[in-house]
């Protein structure tokens, strides 16, 4: 029969012993023949002898972290009558090396619970992240006690912090485990909770059930549409993958190898000159906008001055040589279009950048709290040797890729949905009103812009029904406001700031549009 092992971990004075005593008192050991309690730490709170005797528990002090091996645990269970082991683990011992050891025999780790005092949590989280991470990341539950003083917002923040370390770790606020019956269920003997029916399974079953009764006549239309969506989704994705990987590597190198001071010096010397530099820097990154977005998020995480980065981002498409070339080929004998495309892009970018600088928006304020390669900085001890550095960069790039690719997949999916259904709709709203034309093109920029290079050709197909300045605003604003780029950026930037940035860009775009109307 299986031997359940529960691990309760947490730092000194976190209330582990109290927690374990409450657990035992609530009867979790009652159904086992005999239990062992491995004590790795002597706290202030102690286990009274008669309490242990009453619950048939053998207390075993452990001095050395290395002594808890698979063999040791096996021997313990074989020595007689023990089919449950509770480990009060020492919070300063390495959890990773404990988990790295192979368990033998019938032993299995059932639950790991991290116990923390509410007041101490934040200081541990920020000061001892390296030590804390393996403990919390491997836990099923984080139990927070003495939480009376916490407000609702503080609780949510703490929950999010735990989620950042491991998205599936749950957080409970408990002074006594007996308060929460659902929490206690994970300690029910001989039961594998994960095997019970989950909401996800029910959902899947009902979807399958509905599919059985679907009218088949409509299916071919549905199949056609999904096929179309699938093809455009995959094409956006395949096209973006090389750039995302490139961006991931660049951003990893940027964060691990290049010192912050170097880039900061390049960008923030003389503020006005640096805007020009940021505006023109895109010329040297002749990649698609979807490849640039991960790079931008990397730069932002590095806490570089925001206005310049935003300027660089917005202007990159305008000065990108490949884009200029594509405009040239889409409008072969109208040189003014090319010039207008470049200039209006730079004007909007610098305008938005300057406004951000005048408003004194700092990078820290607009960056999402959970952004940043937190895993990278603490988990990766790397020396000066080249191979170590290379390994660190590869690992960083891999983490970065997984972070960003999720957003790209979502963005590409939404984009492909829009692209399949919107073009017909947009044609319905064609109007000669110049104001309306601008707004239609603005909407098209958000939802129909695929890539800064193909924008010129898509724009060309609008030309005829729309005036030149309107088409131009589609080409210019497309890469700036494109839905999937926004989603990628939302990985680092706060929602509030993204909305502000989009509004700002649209207003700047509108101003430029009016000016262009007068000139052209």
């Amino acid at each position, binding site marked *: 029969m299986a031997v359940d092992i529960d691990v309760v971990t947490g730092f000194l004075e976190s209330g582990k012993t109290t927690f374990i005593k409450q657990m035992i008192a609530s009867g979790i050991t009652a159904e086992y023949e005999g239990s062992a309690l491995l004590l790795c730490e002597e706290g202030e709170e102690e286990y009274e002898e008669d309490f242990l005797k009453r619950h048939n528990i053998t207390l075993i002090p452990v001095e050395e972290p290395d002594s808890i091996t698979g063999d040791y645990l096996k021997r313990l269970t074989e020595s007689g009558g023990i089919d449950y082991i509770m480990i009060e683990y020492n919070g300063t011992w390495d959890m990773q090396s404990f988990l790295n050891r192979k368990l033998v025999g019938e032993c299995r780790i059932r639950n790991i619970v991290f116990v923390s005092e509410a007041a101490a949590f934040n200081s541990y989280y920020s000061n001892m992240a390296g030590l804390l991470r393996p403990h919390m990341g491997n836990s099923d539950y984080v139990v927070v006690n003495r939480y009376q003083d916490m407000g609702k917002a503080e609780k949510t923040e703490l929950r999010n912090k735990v989620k950042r370390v491991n998205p*599936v770790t749950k957080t409970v606020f408990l002074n006594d485990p007996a308060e929460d019956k659902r929490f206690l269920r994970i300690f029910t003997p001989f039961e594998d909770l994960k095997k019970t029916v989950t909401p996800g399974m029910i959902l899947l079953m009902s979807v399958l059930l509905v599919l059985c009764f679907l009218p088949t006549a409509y299916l071919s239309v549905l199949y056609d549409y999904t096929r179309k969506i699938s093809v455009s989704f995959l094409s956006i994705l395949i096209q973006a993958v090389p750039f995302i990987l490139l961006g991931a590597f660049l951003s990893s190198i940027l964060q691990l190898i290049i010192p912050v001071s170097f880039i900061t010096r390049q960008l923030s010397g003389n503020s006005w000159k640096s805007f020009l530099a940021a505006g023109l820097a895109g010329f040297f990154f002749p990649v698609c906008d979807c490849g640039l977005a991960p790079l931008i998020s990397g730069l932002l995480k590095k806490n570089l001055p925001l206005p310049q980065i935003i300027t660089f981002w917005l202007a990159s498409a305008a000065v990108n040589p490949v884009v200029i070339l594509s405009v040239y080929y889409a409008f072969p004998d109208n040189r003014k279009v090319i010039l207008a495309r470049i200039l209006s892009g730079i004007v909007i970018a610098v305008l938005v950048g300057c406004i951000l600088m005048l408003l004194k928006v700092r990078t820290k304020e607009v960056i999402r709290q959970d952004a940043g390669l937190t895993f990278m900085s603490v988990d990766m001890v790397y020396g000066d040797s080249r191979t170590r550095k290379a390994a660190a960069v590869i690992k960083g790039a891999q983490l970065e890729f997984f972070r960003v690719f999720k957003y790209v997949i979502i963005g590409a999916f939404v984009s492909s949905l829009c692209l399949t259904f919107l073009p017909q709709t947009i044609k319905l709203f064609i109007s000669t009103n110049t104001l309306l034309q601008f707004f239609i093109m603005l909407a098209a920029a958000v939802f129909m812009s695929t890539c800064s290079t193909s924008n010129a050709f898509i724009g060309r197909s609008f030309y005829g029904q729309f005036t030149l300045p309107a088409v131009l605003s589609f080409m210019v604003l497309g890469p700036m406001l494109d839905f999937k780029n926004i989603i990628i950026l939302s990985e680092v930037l706060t929602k509030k700031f993204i909305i502000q940035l989009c509004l700002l860009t649209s207003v700047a775009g509108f101003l430029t549009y009016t000016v262009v109307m007068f000139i052209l």
Partner: protein
Amino acid sequence: MAINMRGNKNLEIYMKLFTVIALALFLVYELLSGKVYYYVHPRYKYGIWFAAIALFVFAFSMIGELKKGRHNSGLKRYLIYLLPILLAFLFPDIEGGNGNVAIAQSSRGGNSLYENTVDKTDNDPGAVSDSTQDSGSITGDSTQDSENITSDGTDDTGGAVIEKDRSLKYKNKTSDGAILITDDEFSCWYFELFDYLKDFKGKRYQFTAQVFTSDELKADQFLAGRYIMTCCAVDLMGYGIITDSTLSSKLKENEWITVTGTIGEYNYKGTKVPLLKDAVISKTKAPKEEYVYYYYY
């Protein structure tokens, strides 16, 4: 059994490894089978090879982590990375275009001839409704502007405005005297045809095309064209030239033909577009690459 599931195996790394390898193999398969060109322009080829290699490097770097123990690893969040592969499996037949068919717009705003602005508005038969009149006058202005610019530019040399004859680029001749447009040339030729119709008028061309149909054409007309990709499948569009042929009704949609015809002029919804006259049509096999790609040259 359940025991293994709940042991301290690092399931998360296994899942990641699987994801990365699956994505890399997917890319390699698409590249080797040539299917990738149904999704993206061939110029992305090297980038996609790089991506596949980078993903294999990731996989290699993860092997060392397999031994690390792990408890309570969430696997569901990795499912989203497999969505592209799932879709590729579910919808393997990606050939045959997307059904979006169009006749090109001239980049000069719907009028492709070097005519006088005044002349144009007089002749413009499409100026029936208010909206077309408006757009006509707007485009008229812009054409005039661009003409001013070109004449400004050439003032230094003192010569008159002589535009290069765009049709001179295409020199491959077939046996019966028509000019052969290869697949590589098609997209460039097609768009230039609409922009500089004057240069091409009266010349005879031969090319491989697909049959597109449109409700807005006459009974004895069809569109001879190709699916053109500029960046990826999202901008894939079947572009065709209106072709006069008595065979029209017998041709099937998307059928492959070799068409030879003389460029003429046709008034389509108020704009002058090229027309393929005296067309000779013969059936042919589908080419190796179904789509044509727009190259910047």
